[in-house]
């Protein structure tokens, strides 16, 4: 006989039809996170994402480090997109301290950010390939990614964790022959990524697996608050680089690609189209960049800000990435809030997965351009 339960509580009804599955954290189709999925036969009837496996308390840690020593740990949430996550932080601190960034540093920042966006997208694409069982699509982007990592290593001295952006410019100037090498590598890189169409994007198997799965309509995309590639795949032309240009993005010639379908295929194609635009931006920036000059404003050892609140955001590899800094006149920020695009796109996951077939889960899940470490901060 069942024990008497306190009022208000009841035993969960056991249903033979519904089965609960834990996808993650140890699962070939998940990263550092868990999705609790309930399936009825082959169809998902309930989705409950469970993030927080890599919550390291970045925001709290930022409160007892000063503005300069905050730089290394703030880029750790997305180490393969580390320039873009430091971008809003540096823009915010520059506004706080009233610094004027040298012109050459602005262009070099844009080049580093766009190279890093390509590096991020290549890694994302590699994982998307392996999720769909397409091993060639793991090998090709991982190999081509190393070209750009070499370039970034020349610029910054580190493979993935660059810590290149500092308030008031960039850490070091580039080596003397950097422009030629960069142009050559980027041209070759563009030629390589064009070939992905043959093996991946025009592949009938990929199209049959991703077309019309996880369709996110334009209205839902806006209502759920998604950003970046997810939003642009649903037909909303929203790119921070265009809408709120920072540094020198308003002087450069590029477009932000938009698709109307809103399915997994469109969401997987937008980052690929983004890489072509990044190559265009890099070539344009190399042409317009001043050939010499200072790259960094000298700072006092422990700079202090006034009593203000600052919010700056940039377009990262995944979407709008914002930093909200509250300063109370001390060398440390009073509060630092990182508004991450991954977490915004995660909100769309239950909406998209519920009602899908279980086999479509990896195709929909990773097309959301979601990096769990960043979402957990």
């Amino acid at each position: 006989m069942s024990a008497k339960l306190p009022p208000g509580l009841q035993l969960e009804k056991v249903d033979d039809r519904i089965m609960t599955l834990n996808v993650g954290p140890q699962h070939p189709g998940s990263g550092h996170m868990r999705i609790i999925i309930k399936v009825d036969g082959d169809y998902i009837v309930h989705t409950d994402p469970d993030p927080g496996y890599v919550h390291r308390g970045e925001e709290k840690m930022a409160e007892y480090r000063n503005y300069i020593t905050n730089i290394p740990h703030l880029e750790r949430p997305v180490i393969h997109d580390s320039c873009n996550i430091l971008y809003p932080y540096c823009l915010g601190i520059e506004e706080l301290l009233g610094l004027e960034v040298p012109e050459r540093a602005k262009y070099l920042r844009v080049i580093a950010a766009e190279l890093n966006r390509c590096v991020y997208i290549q890694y994302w694409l590699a994982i998307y390939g392996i999720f769909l069982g397409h091993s060639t699509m793991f090998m090709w982007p991982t190999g081509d990614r190393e070209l750009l990592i070499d370039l970034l290593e020349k610029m910054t001295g580190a493979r993935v964790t660059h810590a290149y952006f500092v308030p008031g410019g960039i850490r070091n100037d580039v080596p003397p022959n950097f422009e030629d090498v960069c142009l050559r590598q980027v041209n070759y890189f563009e030629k390589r990524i064009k070939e992905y169409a043959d093996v991946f994007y025009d592949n009938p198997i990929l199209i049959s697996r991703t077309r019309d799965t996880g369709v996110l309509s334009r209205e839902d995309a806006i209502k759920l608050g998604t950003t970046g590639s997810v939003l642009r795949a649903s037909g909303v032309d929203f790119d921070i680089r265009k809408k709120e240009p920072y540094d020198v993005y308003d002087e450069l010639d590029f477009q932000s690609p938009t698709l109307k379908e809103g399915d997994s295929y469109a969401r997987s194609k937008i980052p690929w189209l983004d890489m072509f635009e990044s190559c265009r931006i890099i070539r344009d920036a190399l042409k317009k960049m001043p050939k010499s000059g200072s790259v960094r404003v000298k700072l006092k050892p422990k700079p202090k800000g006034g009593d203000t609140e600052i919010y700056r955001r940039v377009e990262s590899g995944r979407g709008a990435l914002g930093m909200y800094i509250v300063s109370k006149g001390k060398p440390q920020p009073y509060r630092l809030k990182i508004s991450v695009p991954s977490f915004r796109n995660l909100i769309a996951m239950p909406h998209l997965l519920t009602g899908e077939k279980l086999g479509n889960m990896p195709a929909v899940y990773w097309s959301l351009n979601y990096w769990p470490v960043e979402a957990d901060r």
Partner: protein
Amino acid sequence: MVNDITVSKPKGLSVINQINSNNANVFVGKLGDVLYKAVGTPLGMALNWGRLWSLWPVHIETACCSVEFGAASGPRYDVERFGIIEAFGSLRQCDLVVVQGTITRKMAPRLRLVYDQMPEPKYVIAMGACAITGGLYFDSYNVLPGIDGILPVDVYVPGCPPRPETLIQGCMLLQEKIKRMKAR
């Protein structure tokens, strides 16, 4: 163990009922010693030789070092040359845990569970400063100061994150260690 047997005083075939995983060693121990002395050393060497060229890491990503782990499986670094395939889905067929970075309080029990579910023999590589000492996050409220408290680590690979070459060197050190290990 020995005390239990003397108290219960088993007789005849009822001894078999007393054998369980705890005291089985007492009965078959002597035979095992003789066998081990005869064929143990060459057999163990052969076993270890087989194991060291087929290390299969389990697919558990714990933090951002997984990016460099992925790069190490890529075409430029290609750890498959050393018999280490890229992260594998089923943990029942794996014998290596590469702890890829920070372990938080939420991840620690899951990591231990994965380790416990793997069959023997199993080896652990702690990859990155966070897995060794907590690294940059030494003073964070949600991060363990290294994984020594929850897993027996064989090789430490320093770096934040370690370059793929460093990871490969760590794997080769582990192979060297297995070669000299007593076969389990």
